[in-house]
């Protein structure tokens, strides 16, 4: 056991292969199968639903890093999504004009357009991570409600700023004449950023989700991740262990913002969505918080299940659209009454049936 522990501290190639590269390969294969087999068979309605599910899973699992792992309370996740979405949208939309003279989808799978889209996702994620750093650094000394208010404020400020942007430029001659700054501020304002090419596919959504899941699960098992968890458990004791709690809170924030940015980028390039400041406001942030709370703060699989449930349910409750939010709220109230720790608490689904050794009544000796 000691040998295994020492090996875990210094991962060899075999270890990295089995815990990171291997699973990612499996996800890649899964994404291919989804795209090539499931999508043609299921049709466009389910294709869109699958993409929505994947994007919401990205959002829920990434927010879980902050709210669940680290025990902070952020309600501005949609703001980071907006940063990623708008940055990536601008990269592909104006980038396509500059490269190919039109914003239409260019090239096939892994063609020029796809690569531009991937770059857009990455740049969007990085911008969002930067925003996470900027918001996080001054505000993470705050606790609980105060932090929640700051993150809420961030989302709202961003929304108002986006509403002030100029109309999207769609005339090629004007784009040729425009400076980068003019392009960067022509994001459609309150009407939304229309014309972004639809590059998002089930494949890309699940590749990104696979990436996030590997990061999240590896984090949970690593000493880095345990530092996150220890802050949730007891901040003072975490400090006393030598953990720089402020730095770790910022790290969790930045990491979560990066993946929220990627989710935003996927959302921006999805068929049938318009990138719109109102769409990515407080309501959206709140939806993501609900997923995390419902799944259980700190449970990755819980966040996944909740994200799937809360994406699929409204879709099939469309006829009762007016009642949707009532049902939402009601289910949360019932949840809080009967299972305040969320569906799975802080555990993963597969841990629910595994009894912790020594947890029998006899094991809980009194002092």
């Amino acid at each position: 056991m000691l040998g295994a522990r020492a090996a875990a501290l210094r991962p060899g190639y075999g270890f990295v292969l089995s815990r990171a590269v291997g699973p990612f390969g499996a996800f890649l294969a899964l994404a291919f199968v989804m795209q090539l087999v499931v999508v043609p068979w299921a049709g466009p309605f389910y294709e869109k639903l699958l993409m929505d599910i994947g994007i919401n899973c990205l959002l829920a699992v990434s927010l879980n890093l902050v709210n669940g792992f680290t025990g902070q309370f952020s309600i501005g996740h949609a703001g980071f999504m907006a940063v990623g979405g708008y940055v990536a949208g601008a990269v592909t939309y104006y980038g396509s004009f500059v490269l190919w003279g039109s914003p239409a989808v260019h090239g096939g799978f892994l063609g020029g357009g796809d690569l531009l889209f991937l770059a857009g996702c990455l740049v969007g994620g990085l911008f969002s991570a930067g925003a996470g750093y900027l918001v996080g650094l001054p505000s993470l000394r705050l606790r609980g409600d105060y932090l929640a208010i700051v993150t809420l404020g961030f989302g709202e400020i961003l929304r108002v700023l986006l509403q002030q942007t100029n109309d999207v430029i769609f005339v090629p001659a004007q784009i040729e004449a425009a400076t980068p700054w003019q392009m960067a501020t022509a994001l459609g304002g309150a009407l939304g950023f229309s014309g972004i090419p639809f590059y998002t596919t089930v494949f890309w959504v699940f590749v990104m989700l696979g990436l996030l899941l590997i990061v999240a699960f590896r984090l949970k098992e690593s000493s880095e991740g345990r530092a996150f968890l220890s802050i949730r458990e007891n901040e003072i004791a975490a400090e006393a262990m030598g953990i720089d709690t402020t730095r770790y809170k910022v790290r969790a924030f930045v990491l979560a913002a990066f993946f929220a940015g990627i989710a935003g980028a996927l959302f921006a390039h999805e068929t049938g969505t318009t990138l719109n400041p109102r769409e990515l406001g407080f309501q959206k942030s709140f939806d993501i918080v609900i997923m995390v709370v419902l799944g259980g703060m700190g449970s990755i699989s819980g966040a996944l299940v909740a994200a799937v449930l809360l994406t699929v349910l409204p879709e099939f409750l469309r006829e009762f659209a007016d009642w949707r939010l009532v049902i939402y709220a009601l289910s949360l109230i019932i949840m809080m009454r009967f299972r305040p720790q969320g569906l799975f608490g802080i555990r993963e689904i597969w841990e629910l049936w595994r009894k912790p050794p020594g947890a029998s009544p006899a094991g809980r000796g009194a002092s």
Partner: protein
Amino acid sequence: MALLEICDLDVHYGAIHALKGVTLSVEAGQIVTLIGGNGAGKTTTLRAISGLLTPSAGQITFDGKRIDGRPPHELVRLGLAHAPEGRGVFANLTVDENLDLGAYTRKDAAGVAADRDKVLRLFPRLRERLLQPAGTLSGGEQQMLAIGRALLARPRLLLLDEPSLGLAPQVVRTIFDIIREINAAGTTILLVEQNAHMALRVAHMGYVLEVGRIVMADRASVLAASDDVRKAYLGGH
């Protein structure tokens, strides 16, 4: 020079003057205890040493280096570990994970594994409960975990805040035996206690703190025999 020197330390909580010119020193290799009633400032002193509080005046020197005002995560690396009051175990993490977090600042995997083994020999109860969430342990076991976890940082100075708090007398005796054992193995200990009787029995030196001031300082055996201390803290017989 002593391992830890505190000179004229003042701490304020807002308008409340909690420590008023506390001066004490801890010699390497000793157990030094800080006793006193509720609200005397014992925990405040420990927190100021470990960096959880910033003093408003005075100096703290550890191993010849000024450490007052430095953040706790730097001090752990210098060799100062704090087992906080109320134990502060990570309740939802397993005993195993709690111990891992104790060694958080260390990079020497082999040394950590050896120290883990030592800690588990010191506290066999923890070995039986390795995969159990720390929150399901009894109070005494949680205290053992808090001490064991602090030891995994391989501290030169271990700060213990009321290890007897809320424990049955039998368990308190076990814990104090282990404190003595840890010290015999070479770790210097600063022990804050309300249980003056037990604390003075294991300590070499003792300080008595009353409303933010040191009112007595002497060898522990002398303090234990002193009439004032007996009256105030040892039940007067």
